[in-house]
């Protein structure tokens, strides 16, 4: 072991006067063939890395990263869920003796013991033997912890309908709709359609959005008079000229959205 005191250096540099090797001792004490790190072994590592990268990129391309709708703090119905590697801690807090009056047990004592033991493992498991069967307690505790974490993660994840969640929380792109209230058809829209289809044609629980529809003006006029799907006939009650202006208005808004 080197001590700072009494060490000699070359000139004012940090290079030690006594020649000592920084390089770890020779591996010749282990039986078998060694290989130079540079360039032989690094090339093989490079190949492993390349294969790994291909797999990783395939994952990335096959599953686009999810994005839900913009955060809405007033959405009281939203069920929060952490990222998957925190699910086990989240699930732990659902147990009776890890929540309520025992919450400190769930958030501090148990995780603190587990991660504290992980941090100090070399000092808790300080015997000379390295093989797993020579240290049954340490290995047993690790297996127990591992199984618990996997079990908690699995229970937590199995309660979630991931597909449904993704469907219900799709990102809604910002509306780029321009509603020209000066348009001659707006009055007709306001009188007949707005109650259900909304001020920005965004739709409501009763009616679909009118943005992004692929109808001709004639078809829009027909639907306005005769209805379609759950929309009853006879909702529009104006003149033919107003009907034409209405169809033109809806087409104009659609064009602005593109």
């Amino acid at each position: 072991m080197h001590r700072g005191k009494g060490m000699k250096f070359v000139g004012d540099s940090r290079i030690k006067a006594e020649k000592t090797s920084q390089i770890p001792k020779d591996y010749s004490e282990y039986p078998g063939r060694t290989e130079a790190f540079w360039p032989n072994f690094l090339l093989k590592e490079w190949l492993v890395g390349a294969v790994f990268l291909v797999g990783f990129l395939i994952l990335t391309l096959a599953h686009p990263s999810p994005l839900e709708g913009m955060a809405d703090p007033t959405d009281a119905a939203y069920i929060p869920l952490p990222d998957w590697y925190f699910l086990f801690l989240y699930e732990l807090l659902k147990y009776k003796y890890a929540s309520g009056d025992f919450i400190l047990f769930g958030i501090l004592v148990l995780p603190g013991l587990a991660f504290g033991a992980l941090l100090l493992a070399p000092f808790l498991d300080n015997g000379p033997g390295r093989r797993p069967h020579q240290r049954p307690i340490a290995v047993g505790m690790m297996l127990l912890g591992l199984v618990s974490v996997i079990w908690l993660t699995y229970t937590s994840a199995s309660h979630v309908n991931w597909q449904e969640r993704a469907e219900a929380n799709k990102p809604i792109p910002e509306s780029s709709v321009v509603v020209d209230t000066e348009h001659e058809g707006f009055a007709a829209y306001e009188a007949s359609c707005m109650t259900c289809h909304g001020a920005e044609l965004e739709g409501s629980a009763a009616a679909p959005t009118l943005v992004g529809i692929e109808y001709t003006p004639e078809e829009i006029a027909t639907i306005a008079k005769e209805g379609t799907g759950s929309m009853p006939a006879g909702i529009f009650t104006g003149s033919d000229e107003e009907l034409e202006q209405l169809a033109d208005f809806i087409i104009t808004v659609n064009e602005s959205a593109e």
Partner: protein
Amino acid sequence: MLQKVYDWIDERIDITPIWRDIADHEVPEHVNPAHNFSAFVYCFGGLTFFVVVIQILSGMFLTMYYVPDIENAWKSVYYLQSEVAHGQIVRGMHHWGASVVIVMLLLHTLRVFFQGAYKKPRELNWIVGVLIFFVMLGLGFTGYLLPWDNKAYFATQVGLEIAEQVPFIGTELKTLLAGDASIVGAQTLTRFFAIHVFFLPAALFALLAVHFILIRRQGISGPL
């Protein structure tokens, strides 16, 4: 030409020892999958570092578009996903990399644990490694909020409520992270951004440097 440049620099600052420290060493047979395929377990640590490099690079590119502000954070991510060329892929790499790095870290930790490789004289490096694991979890927790979508917002709110229940320092801890004792909002987002992009990566780089220097000083543990 290159040799001349190298010699010119080497003459002045003596870089050959640095090079020898980094790359000039022997790799023992028992960690070399080319000799013994089961030695592939020794790849986990290197692959973890590889994913960390992916995270750093993709994260650097993400900050070119990301805006840490509650009005624009979600919009900038949405824009990056839907409009920017290859933005989907860059964000995808950062998103999936965050999960893959945890998996690789876990595998690496288990390899070291079950081989008892943390025993004397490598106790310190194990501690540094576990600290790296904690920093990674912190990066995962803070990064989860940044897209500012619903799942990010509500998960962070729950996380901060848990922090609040810590005795004595709970409220202070929550205020430190969220910027306010009760609101999860603009302050929280900028703080999480700063923690995710500056504080934790700084800690990570320092720990990684120590981790690698210790490996080079002590060498890889022998075969079982």
